[in-house]
């Protein structure tokens, strides 16, 4: 049976982002109307029954997260939509917000109703300024049409949705760092517990959810949890967006069920390898997860299958690498990212990332020594599991994973005193490009 997209079916249409289009083609705001006729707890039950798992990275069940949101309190409750989308290799929320913004707005409204919140803040990364303009204009239209504001659809429910613009910080995607940033501070994570569900934004009960997660909520309410469950493998239901980038013919965002395999994504949806070169490795879930090898191509891209294969689905950002990629260079490129983005709150991450980057840069420049390899794994293992947030593990992963699978390349760099795989797409004079 051919897969029928439901999140991105119309994103290629010129007016797909408008309210009129949404009402006409996507049964717009019917989900909200339906939700307001039942009790908030029923919505939570439906989302639980659907098994919807967070699309932001961790894959945590959304219904359960909502159930934890403290009810017995005089404080207001909040929804924070995580639209920070900064994980290298990830670009799906961008598409949803730009081409289907009303699905997100409706998702925010239903989620607010479910957890008893009156306000949702959409925290969007600062670089998505063009997306923000569209989103805010459409929110304005939703207000005027009575889908947001006081007494939504005459159901006695008040709901405000605001966009909050970040200013360039990967770490703002971590949920407690996002809350700190929203409160007007540096985007540095908090110590947990307390979890946001009990003390989040302004110390009030808060649910932080990814854009794609919230976009699934109206679909579940409208089509029922069974529909959602039926789409994918067990415990991995629902439509899913996959971002394919790197050495493929047609990089892009592809919607599919989690039955789909890595092979189908790369050789089907993304049109195969660029210049038909051989596949060397894949990073299936954004830059923070372990690499997979070509013999794992037939793994379905579900949270559980990818985990069983030894990696993580993460943000579903599939980065495809052909045989021209030097793995030491790759680790260096990613550690440059992590070194730059570490929020600096804990020592192993702040100092470790810098150290790892310097070691990798030295190896890549041909000045590495053989004991650098032990040092690399030593430093990495002193970061993993010893930091305040998951960033630390994420940063050490590219090093440990490439060292495990491609140790020979590291050794060759030391032995030959140069990069053994300098590709044409890389800098001709690496020292000119800043480190």
């Amino acid at each position: 049976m051919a897969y029928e997209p439901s999140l991105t079916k119309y994103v290629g249409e010129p007016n797909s982002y408008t309210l009129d289009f949404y009402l006409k083609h996507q049964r717009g705001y019917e989900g909200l109307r339906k939700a307001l006729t039942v009790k908030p707890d029923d919505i939570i039950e439906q989302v639980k029954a659907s098994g919807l798992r967070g699309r932001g990275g961790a894959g945590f069940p959304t219904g359960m997260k909502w159930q934890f949101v403290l009810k017995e309190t005089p404080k207001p409750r909040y929804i924070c939509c995580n639209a920070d989308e900064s994980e290298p290799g990830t670009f799906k929320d961008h598409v949803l917000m730009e081409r289907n913004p009303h699905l997100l707005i409706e998702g925010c409204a239903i989620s607010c109703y479910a957890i008893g919140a009156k306000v949702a803040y959409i925290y969007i990364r600062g670089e998505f300024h063009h997306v923000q303009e569209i989103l805010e204009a459409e929110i304005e239209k939703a207000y005027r049409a009575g889908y947001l504001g006081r007494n939504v659809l005459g159901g006695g429910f008040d709901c405000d949705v605001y966009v909050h613009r970040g200013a360039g910080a990967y770490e703002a995607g971590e949920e407690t760092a996002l809350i700190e940033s929203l409160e007007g501070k540096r985007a540095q994570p908090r110590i947990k517990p307390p979890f946001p569900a009990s003390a989040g934004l302004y110390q009030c009960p808060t649910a932080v959810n990814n854009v794609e997660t919230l976009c699934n909520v109206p679909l579940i309410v409208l089509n029922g949890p069974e529909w959602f469950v039926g789409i994918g493998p067990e415990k991995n239901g629902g439509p899913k967006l996959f971002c394919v980038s790197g050495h493929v013919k047609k990089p892009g965002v592809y919607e599919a069920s989690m039955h789909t395999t890595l092979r189908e994504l790369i050789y089907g949806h993304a049109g195969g390898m660029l210049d038909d070169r051989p596949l060397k490795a894949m990073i299936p879930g954004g830059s923070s997860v372990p690499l997979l090898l070509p013999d794992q191509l037939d793994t379905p891209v579900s949270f559980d299958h990818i985990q069983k294969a030894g990696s993580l689905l993460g943000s579903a950002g599939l980065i495809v690498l052909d045989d021209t990629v030097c793995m030491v260079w790759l680790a260096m490129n990613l550690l440059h990212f992590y070194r730059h983005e570490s929020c600096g709150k804990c020592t192993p991450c702040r100092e470790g990332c810098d150290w790892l980057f310097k070691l990798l840069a030295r190896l890549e420049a041909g000045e590495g020594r053989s004991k650098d390899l032990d040092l690399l794994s030593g430093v990495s293992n002193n970061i993993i599991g010893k930091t305040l947030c998951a960033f630390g593990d994420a940063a050490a992963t590219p090093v440990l994973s490439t060292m495990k699978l491609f140790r020979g390349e590291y050794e060759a760099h030391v032995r030959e005193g140069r990069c053994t795989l300098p590709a044409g797409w890389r800098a001709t004079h690496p020292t000119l490009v800043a480190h």
Partner: protein
Amino acid sequence: MSFHPPMEYAPTRFHKSERELAEPGGGFTYTPENQAKFDANVKRYPADQRKSAILYALYLAQNQQGYLTAAAMRHVAQQIGCTAAEVEDVVSYYTMFFTKPVGTYVLNVCRTLSCALRGAERVTEELIATLGIKPGETDPTGTFTLLEVECLGACDRAPVVMVNDDWHERLDPDQVRVLVDAIRARGRAAFSGCHLHKEKM
């Protein structure tokens, strides 16, 4: 009584921070339009949480005079009702705020993995050659500033260059000179913008 060993108070022996202070700048206040925008934005947050509007307030100031001076940060502090140190704390954390003048066009080249795989390092090299400046620098005429940034969230359109708040995608290294000339000639009109506006996916 102090338990510290006696210290030599020679200035050369002191640890000297490498941090550069923000330029003081002349007196700064919002234009009436920006003041109105700020007053509207701050209403999005609970009345006792004005600090939430700090990033917005800083963007307003930066758009007004191109970068953030100490005077501008002090003005933001007054608007928010916090200390200037708190504002500086925030400014120094986020990458999108400038405390030094930048060119009319800030070219932010994405250098992270997916873009690098499709030639971002070559794009940066071409820009260095074309503009005669290195990443982090501004050309003498104040037209261009070149920066390398991390993943912009559009990896399918690699290599990506963000010019101010606009995007330029799929920039082949051999197209760099053409783009720079086009920006010189036509300004913003030379940007190709975000792909989603234009083409079918």
